[in-house]
């Protein structure tokens, strides 16, 4: 009897794995994961806390943020973020002077290099932060930008 229950449990688990593998469980999982608390945080500290769960964030030269030091138009500011840290799992971008500082969180698989280029809105002169999750820890780098016309 005990053995039978065990087998049933294994089969149920296998069926679930098959469904997940076929992508049938994907939409629900995906939609549930947009981190509302992160993106609705109204201060940089609150956004960082929501992203990390309060874990320690270490400043690191292993995270490189390439972007201009001045921008005329804060509505579209290009940047490149590169992580040289092994086992980089995610990269988040934040802008201190935006009304809602958290801008994006990218989750990477090993199939892509830990380097991204994109464009953000910058609300005013201040710090731009790239937060990297690597090997179960958080690392960041900060870039100061002067913006003539805020983009928020």
């Amino acid at each position, binding site marked *: 009897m005990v053995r039978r229950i065990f087998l049933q449990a294994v089969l149920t688990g296998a069926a679930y794995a098959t469904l997940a593998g076929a992508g049938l469980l994907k939409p629900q999982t*995906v*939609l549930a*994961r*947009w*981190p509302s608390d*992160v*993106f609705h945080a109204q201060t940089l500290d609150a956004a960082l806390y929501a992203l990390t769960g309060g874990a320690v964030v270490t400043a690191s030269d292993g995270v490189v943020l390439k972007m201009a030091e001045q921008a005329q138009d804060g*509505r*579209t*500011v*290009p940047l490149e973020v590169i992580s040289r840290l092994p086992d980089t799992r995610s990269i988040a971008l934040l*802008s201190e002077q*935006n*009304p*809602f*500082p*958290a*801008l*994006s*969180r*990218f*989750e*990477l*698989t*090993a*199939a*892509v*290099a830990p*380097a*991204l*280029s*994109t*464009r*953000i*809105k910058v609300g005013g002169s201040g710090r731009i932060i790239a937060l990297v999750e690597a090997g179960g820890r958080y690392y960041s780098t900060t870039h100061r930008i002067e913006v003539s016309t805020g*983009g*928020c």
Partner: protein
Amino acid sequence: MSNGPSKHRLRAVADDGAADVRVLIQHPMETGTRRHPETGELIPRHYIRELHAEVNGTEVLRAYWSWGMAFNPYLAFRIRRAQVGDTVRVYWIDNLGVADAVEGSVG
């Protein structure tokens, strides 16, 4: 490689066994705080919430965005191992539930 009549663009260029992907999406990415220049009414917040990139049907990257990403979003990334002809597909869903996608081949 452009993507035919789609208003969005995806290019995937082979480079030494890898591929550099560049995606340009047409989307207003409205913050919800802008006012219409004539009526003065607030323009509702309208932004891409999540974006996924797949290579030959396997997800390689996923992103969650706020309205703080620039309008007509641009994203470039590098697939570590890719062959000419591999299919790269990027799809996204905005906060109004509208989904769209752009696809191309590594060339």
